[in-house]
């Protein structure tokens, strides 16, 4: 009785066919020419790398994978730039006065398939010009461990208040609670160009640009 092999070998597919069969030639049978061919490739890379390192001219890391030459970079001193639309860690955009643009509508946490956003809405405090007009997030928490970086929250946000344009990817922390990003941290994150604002200006209550109430007598 033959001993069963484990793991079980999958049955060979019955539609398999030989793509290419290289007949051994005397050149490959001799073995040494192929060795030297391989060494030549390695040495070519070695000398090119050394030359580029001495001259301090690295190839463009974006195109280097398709360019000739080395295919390694010295991470983390060198980083491959991420594409334009890369969804990095979240940030909360700010208004001109530094307050969050978020109005705590909970659209992002509704759209979030991972359910990693928690928001507690509240009314602006007494004396704030936005009191009565708007709400603001008293708490805004994103659990970056649960987040799947799908960008639905950014899609859902009607106020351009949450963005994923920081260009940062999740950092390996050493404890789980450091992945819980709170409002102050999210507000402190800047976009890739270092700005905290958005490209979408808005009317603010009491703005110069705001035409104000259309009728004349304001008393109500």
């Amino acid at each position, binding site marked *: 009785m033959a001993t069963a092999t484990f793991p079980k070998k999958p049955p060979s597919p019955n539609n398999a066919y030989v793509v290419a069969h290289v007949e051994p030639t005397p050149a490959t049978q001799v073995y040494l020419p192929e060795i030297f061919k391989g060494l030549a490739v390695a040495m070519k890379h070695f000398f090119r790398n050394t030359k580029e390192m001495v001259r301090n001219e690295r190839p463009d890391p974006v195109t280097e994978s398709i360019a000739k030459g080395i295919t390694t970079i010295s991470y983390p001193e060198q980083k491959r730039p991420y594409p334009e639309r890369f969804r990095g860690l979240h940030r909360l955009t700010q208004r001109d006065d530094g307050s969050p643009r978020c109005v705590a509508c909970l*659209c992002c946490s509704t759209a979030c398939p991972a359910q990693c956003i928690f928001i507690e809405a509240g*009314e602006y405090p007494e004396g704030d010009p936005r*009191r009565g007009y708007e709400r603001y997030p008293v708490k805004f928490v994103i659990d970056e461990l649960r987040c799947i970086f799908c960008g639905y929250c950014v899609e859902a946000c*009607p106020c351009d208040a949450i963005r994923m344009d920081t260009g940062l990817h999740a950092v390996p922390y050493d404890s789980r609670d450091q992945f819980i990003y709170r409002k102050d941290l999210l507000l402190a994150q800047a976009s890739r160009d270092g700005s905290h604002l958005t490209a979408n200006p808005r009317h603010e209550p009491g703005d110069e640009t705001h035409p*104000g109430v259309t009728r004349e007598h304001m008393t109500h």
Partner: protein
Amino acid sequence: MPTFTYDGKTIPFEPGETIIKAAYRQGIEIPHYCWHPGLSAPANCRMCLVEIAPAAGQRAMMLDVLEWDASLNDYRPRQKPKLQPACQIPAAEGMQVKGDSSDNVKEARKGVQEFLLLNHPVDCPICDQSGECKLQDYWLEHGQYQKRMRDEPIHKPKAVRFGPSIVYDGERCVMCTRCIRFMDEVAKDPVLDMRERGNLNEIFVAPGRELTGHYTFMTEHVCPVGALTTVDFRFKARVWFLRTAKTVCQGCATGCNAHLDYDPRYNKVYRYRPRDNEQVNAYWMCDEGMLSYKRAHEDRVVDPYVKGSVSAMKKALAEAKSYFEAVPGETIAVVLSAQHSLEDNWALRELAGAYLGTRAIYATGLPEGYHDTILIHEDKNPNTRGVLELAPGVRPFSSLLDDIEAGRVTHVIALGGETPADASAELGPRAKNALERLQALVTIAAHDGLLARAAHVLLPAASWAEASGTYVNAKGIHQVTEKAIEPQGVSEPGWKLVADVGQALGYDTSWTKLKQVRARLTSAPTVPDAAAVSPSRPQVTP
């Protein structure tokens, strides 16, 4: 019954009824903003326009319109049938009404929708109505266009305080005047009106007045958009997270039908909404009732207490047993509660009558208060009639105090913490002293009160929001509430706690399911729907 057809569907109506009301009763909704089944019909939103075929032998009313023809690159004259508001036209025998099946009506709806949204700010992220807003719903259903107006919209006052409970946002208002008509027709306090003309229209409060009274919350409820918001619910929750349970308001003996909106994620109740029931409350609720949802979380008993300190359920039951060993039945009294459901009261009465053998049955509840002729009943207990049906000879709380002071009653098992003496200055101290004289007081209560505070053993009962129960209102209508949130703390339904107490005292109180309780409570099947009326009375076993 005479009938007419709407989009080919035959709809019966009572003579004099409008088209929209007859369709509404059949569950067919003709889109509308300003019409409300409980209010008059002003026909000022123009959303319910329908096409009515002319009567036999009559010409249809036609409108001459100019229509842009792209192929001619010019306007060309055309005739369109004149549409009529369904909320104003009384239905007639054999009338043929076209709604969704008429292209003219569809066009009109789209036009009305665009007109209403011209100056409407797209505040949806901030607006509390988002998710239940007619403008959103009808835009999806009948609109679906891009905004064409490039001008700055009209700006009106925002966040205007109409009164202590209502905030008004002029820009969101679509001038349906429902709130004005509600205050006029139902609350009989014409404090709201409209001023300015055209797109400067706004609602305002009569000078020198505020929107106050006992029916201010309803103005927010009838508002089809987010123009009126209540201070209480403002910015608290988003409606698409809320789940709804059909319930009955616990504020007074009227027993208004309501929806209880709660968030299952936080096990928290957020608001009441009135539920239509022509027999009880029509479409309305009072302010006190609308705010009484807070009782699901306020003044609650959620842990067992033994002599005022938190304990465990088993320990509390063992403690209760130790009080009642070798006590003659005639010194034991039970106190039913008009604040608790029929099931809870039935269980206690069963324990008293069938097991303890006591004849001393008393009742507590909240004292009487404000009442009016619209909805508010002077009796502030939801289930007074139910207690009277269960125990016709029930004695009031004051006679319980007399009997304690006379020494006729030394051991009490009570339901509900609230007593008529809770807030009264003259009765309060007397009740407190009397209850302290008791040798044993076991209270099963959902809410705090004198009986709960004086109890030697206090067991946490589930409130009306956490357990299904039957309540009998002042008219004698049996209404069933649905369970909304999960029981808070370690609270359990009152009838179950009564069974536990009975078992602790050594009786075989064997009901463990609500079904069993209801089957024994009434010979008729239980009322599945709170709106249904049960003519049957629970059978009182002597």
